[in-house]
C-alpha cells in the first residue's frame, strides 16, 4: 500500500504525465492515475478480479470531486424485443447498436448528479444515462424548430426503451456499474478507486479516464490504458480454436474418444 502510494506520488512529479486537457492555465489543476496492474490476465482460475486505480490530483480543493470511468472494448450489439406470438415470446424488432462499450464502470467521490452538470457529463459520456449508445441504421437528420441537421431516431421515443434495456441487461451482468462512492479521497490530493471486473469481463483494450470536477465541470483529466487478456492454458486453447479450428476439432475428437475408451477399460478390469 505505502509503496503504491509513493509510486502514485512520483507520477505527479513527472510533468509530462499530468497534462490537464480542458483546464485554463490559471488554475494549474492536474490529475494523474496509475493501476496496480496494466494487464489483467484471465487464467483458468479467473473468477473476476478487483481493479484498483490510484491517483493524485494537484491543486485539489475542498468541494472538488473525482470521477474514474472505465470503458471496455467496443462491440456491436443487436437488441431484440420479445413479443407475444400465439402465446409464446418471440424475439422481434431488432435494433443494431454500434460501438457499444462491453464494460463500463464509473466511480466517483459523490453521486454524479450532486456535483456535475448535464453538459459536462453528456460531452464526456460519463454515467449510465450519458453513455453513448447509437443505432446509426435507425438515424436520420431533420430540421426541428428551425434547427437544421438534428439527428433523430426512426424509432422515435422507443429508442429510449432500447437504450435502457442495454444498460439494464449489462447492469444485471455486473458489466455496467455506477459506484457513487467508489472513489475515496486520501490525504494530500491522493485518491483511490476500487472497481470489480466480473468473470464475464470481455477481453480487449480498456481505457480509464480520470476527471477532476470543480463547479460542475471537469478542470483536468487524464487517460490511461488497461488490457484484459487470456493467459496461460486459456490463451493457448482460445488461439488454437480460432487460428487452427481443424486441429482443435480433431483434438476434441481424440480427447473424447480416448477418455471414453479409458473409462470402459478401467471399469472392465475392476
Amino acid at each position: 500500500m505505502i509503496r503504491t502510494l509513493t509510486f502514485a506520488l512520483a507520477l505527479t512529479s513527472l510533468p509530462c504525465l499530468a497534462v490537464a486537457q480542458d483546464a485554463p492555465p490559471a488554475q494549474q489543476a492536474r490529475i494523474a492515475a496509475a493501476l496496480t496492474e496494466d494487464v489483467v490476465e484471465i487464467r483458468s482460475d479467473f473468477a473476476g478480479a478487483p481493479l484498483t486505480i490510484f491517483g493524485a490530483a494537484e491543486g485539489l480543493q475542498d468541494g472538488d470531486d473525482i470521477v474514474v470511468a472505465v470503458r471496455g472494448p467496443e462491440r456491436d450489439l443487436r437488441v431484440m424485443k420479445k413479443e407475444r406470438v400465439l402465446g409464446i415470446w418471440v424475439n422481434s424488432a431488432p435494433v443494431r447498436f454500434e460501438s457499444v462499450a462491453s464494460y463500463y464502470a464509473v466511480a466517483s467521490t459523490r453521486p454524479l448528479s450532486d456535483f456535475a452538470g448535464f453538459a459536462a457529463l453528456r460531452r464526456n459520456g460519463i454515467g449510465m444515462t450519458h453513455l453513448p449508445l447509437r443505432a446509426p441504421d435507425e438515424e436520420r437528420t431533420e430540421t426541428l424548430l428551425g434547427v437544421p441537421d438534428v439527428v433523430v431516431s426512426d424509432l422515435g421515443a422507443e429508442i429510449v426503451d432500447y437504450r435502457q434495456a442495454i444498460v439494464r441487461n449489462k447492469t444485471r451482468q455486473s458489466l455496467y456499474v455506477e459506484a457513487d462512492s467508489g472513489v475515496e479521497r486520501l490525504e494530500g490530493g491522493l485518491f483511490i478507486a476500487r472497481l470489480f471486473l466480473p468473470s464475464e469481463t470481455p477481453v480487449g483494450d480498456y481505457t480509464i479516464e480520470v476527471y477532476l470536477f470543480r463547479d460542475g465541470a471537469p478542470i483536468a483529466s487524464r487517460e490511461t490504458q488497461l488490457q484484459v487478456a487470456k493467459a496461460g492454458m486459456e490463451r493457448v486453447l482460445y488461439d488454437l480454436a480460432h487460428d487452427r479450428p481443424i486441429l482443435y476439432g480433431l483434438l476434441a475428437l481424440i480427447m473424447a474418444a480416448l477418455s471414453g475408451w479409458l473409462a470402459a477399460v478401467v471399469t472392465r478390469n475392476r
Partner: protein
Amino acid sequence: MQIYLPIAEISLNLYLLLGLGLGVGFLSGLLGVGGGFLMTPILIFLGIPPAVAVSTQANQIMASSVSGALAHWRRKSLDVKMGTVLIIGGMVGSVLGVQIFGYLQSLGQIDLVISLCYVGFLGVIGSLMLVESVNAIRRRMNGNPPPKRKRRKRRLIDALPFKTRFPVSGLYMSVIPPLAIGFLVGLLAALMGVGGGFVMVPAMIYILCMPTSVVIGTSLFQILFVTAVTTFLQAAQNQTVDIVLAAILIVGGVVGAQFGVKAGAKVKGEELRAGLALLVVAVCLKLAWDLAATPNDLYVLIEAGGAP
C-alpha cells in the same frame, strides 16, 4: 472452486459441472440416451451461450457413447450393420443441421428454435412412451400375459425398395427408414445438442421393430459417430466447442455411464422406460412454461459479430 472456460468466456463452479456430468452420464448408461436433452438446457441456464452449450454437448455425448458402446460391444448387444446405415443418414443430417444452426444464430432466433424443438419432440415422445410403459406395467401387475404379437400386416415400410438383411436384429427391411431416422437424429444433434437417443430408441422399437436387446447398444453406436461429426464441424466452422468444459463434463460423464450400464441390467425394461418418459415430460413442461411465461426482461442483447 471456480474454473474459467476459454470459449464460453465465463467462470463456473468446477464441482457443479463434475456433478452434472456424473448424473447425466449415469442416465446415459442406464437408458441409452445421450442425456443431452437434460444437459443442454442446464448449461444454457447456467449462463453458457447456447451455441457453445450445444456444440460442447456433442463433444461430451461422444465420449459417453464411446464408453457405453464399448460396453455393449463386449456384450454383443449391438447391430453394427443397422448402426452403419443409421450413421450414414446421421452424417448428412448433422452437416445440414450445423448450417441451419449458423443461419438461425445470425437471425437471433436460435434460442427460440432450440426451445420449440425441445418442447415438440420431448412432448410427443415423452407422452407416447409414458402411456406405453404404464400400460405394460399395469398388464404385468394384473398378471395378464402381454398381448400376442400378431403377424404384422404389410405396412408402408415393407413396400419400400432397397431391402437388405440385418442378421443381428433378425430383420429384413428397406434401408430407407433407418436412413431417414438417422438423418433426423443427425439434424437434432446439430440443432439441439442432443445425441438423439430419445428419438432413436423409440423409433427403433416402434418403427423399425428391432429387438429391445440391441436397441440401446446400436443407438449409442450411431450417436458416437454422429456427435463426432457434429463436434468437428462446430469446432471447425463456428468455433463453439469449449474443450475445457467438455473435458470436465466427460470426466463425470464416462464414470456415470459405466454405473448406469450396470444399474440398467438390474432394472426392468418397463420401469426404465416409464422413468425416462417422466423425465422427458418434465423437461418438456419446464421449457414450455419458460416459452409462455412473461419474461423478466422483454429485451435481449445479442452480440453481433462483423457485418450486419
